[in-house]
């Protein structure tokens, strides 16, 4: 009976911590039992609405070769965002044509999107020389989708890079913040890949927050997509010639090739996390990537 009492006390404490009163709360435990506000199909509909208003996004790199800076899981708070600051400084200092991507879990606790804004200076996922982001599970805890949306506008979109009128590479951002792509986004992805894979892009890259494989114990309690979705998603990506899938979520780097697709999982950018790093990718006729460790304090 004592054990039951102890367990029920812990459960109650976790649930109370999830009620949104504590502004520093990082985990929304109620999310274990119900969605954190809008589900993926709704978020996708909202994103498509914005994408339609904005129009297609083509980024002229003015060169066939360019660099992409990629980071993930920065989990910033107002108090601590040293690594993300460093990442942005490195990105801005780079002289070659460049882009930056953030693979989700930008913030850790509530009310930190304004702080993220001040660091990464996004502009509605439209402007070159800024950071394009995808949505992580932490970004929507405590029903924060509307706040994310007010800053970043969309969580599922595509853009391509060009050199003048020459098409270079296609990038597709997917919303996997709740561990599934949902029905409408999956259908959209298949149609998009079917159409775009015939347009002669040099490389097709997909980036999203949730990683697909559980190769070891490094991922802690972070979950993946359901098995049925893993089979279907990986088959689709292989079928349409996607070369890389970049994701985060598990805070430990991984590399897997399956169905001809390279799945790269990034380390975290979170301060004080073991093994923090970001990735730079040289996009040319081939793709060459390197990991860079954040400097120690």
């Amino acid at each position, binding site marked *: 009976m004592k054990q039951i009492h102890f367990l029920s006390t812990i459960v109650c404490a976790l649930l109370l911590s999830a009620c949104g009163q504590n502004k520093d709360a990082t985990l929304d435990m109620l999310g274990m039992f119900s969605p954190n506000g809008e589900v993926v199909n709704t978020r996708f509909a909202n994103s498509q609405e914005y994408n339609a208003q904005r129009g297609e996004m083509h980024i002229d790199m003015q060169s066939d070769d360019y660099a992409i800076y990629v980071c993930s899981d920065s989990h910033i708070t107002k108090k601590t965002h040293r690594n993300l600051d460093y990442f942005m400084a490195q990105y801005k200092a780079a002289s070659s044509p460049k882009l930056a991507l953030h693979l989700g879990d930008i913030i850790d606790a509530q009310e930190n999107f304004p702080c993220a804004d001040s660091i990464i200076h996004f502009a509605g996922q439209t402007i070159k020389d800024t950071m394009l982001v995808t949505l992580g599970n932490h970004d929507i*805890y405590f029903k924060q989708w509307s706040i994310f949306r007010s800053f970043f506008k969309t969580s599922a979109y595509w853009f391509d890079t060009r050199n003048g009128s020459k098409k270079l590479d296609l990038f597709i951002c997917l919303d996997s913040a709740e*561990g599934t792509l949902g029905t409408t986004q*999956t259908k959209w992805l298949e149609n998009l890949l079917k159409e775009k894979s015939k347009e002669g892009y040099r490389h097709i890259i997909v980036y999203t927050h949730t990683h697909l494989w*559980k190769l070891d114990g490094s991922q802690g309690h972070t979950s993946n997509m359901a*098995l049925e979705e893993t*089979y*279907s998603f990986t088959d689709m990506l292989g079928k349409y010639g996607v070369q890389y899938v970049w994701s985060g979520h598990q805070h430990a780097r991984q590399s897997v*090739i399956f169905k001809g697709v390279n799945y790269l999982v990034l380390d975290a950018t979170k301060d004080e996390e073991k093994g923090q790093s970001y990735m730079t990718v040289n996009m040319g006729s081939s793709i060459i990537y390197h990991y860079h460790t954040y400097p120690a304090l």
Partner: protein
Amino acid sequence: MKKVFLFLAAMIPLTVFAAGNPGFGERKYSVSGLAEYSYNTTWGHHANFDIQGLMPINPHFEMEAKMHLSTANVYTGSVYLRPKFELPVGELFIETDVMYRAVARNKIGDITAALGVGYRMDYVSVTLGMFGRVFDNWERDWHSNETYVVEPFNMLYRLEVFCRPQANPWNLSFVFTNVDDKHMERMWQPLFMVNAYYDVVEHWRLLFGAQCKPTGMFHLDASFYGASLRTGFSYRF
């Protein structure tokens, strides 16, 4: 991995030829057939058919074989070897499973092998263990860099709470697990099930089952992913 196989190979003959008292819960030779309606957001609506055979070879060892055929073009076969030991209260068992899932619709093979320890009483059954998984691409080019995707360590868990004692002619149970007859999900992807049976006449048992599979529970952003309902008969010899 080699050590695990050696251990299993050594254990099987020991348990097959062991003899002793009748097993807990009067498990009998049985053959079952079930039909299932299922839905998930990836495969949509589909139907499944299950054929299962239970062979309690002696009081200390039982085998189970299951075949799961799905109109989603997915086929699963599994074999369970279950050494068991009667205790003053309840029964201790070792769960050894091998499951192969042929995902023909996506040309993927998914093989899992599990080893667990369980304890069964009249009203509660608990199993804890580990399993490993290998994903194989049927279209893999042998000359490419691509190999199997191996997920060596996953936790297996199953907690089942029964409304009636196990020897009762009817029962209703609630299950929290990450494994079922057709797949072994990753440890952070739980399944919720309700199972029931009713002994209609001497040899015939009516079976019912329902399952709900959420997604993203451990993303702390759970939403509905899939559900299934099934019914069938079991003939107990």
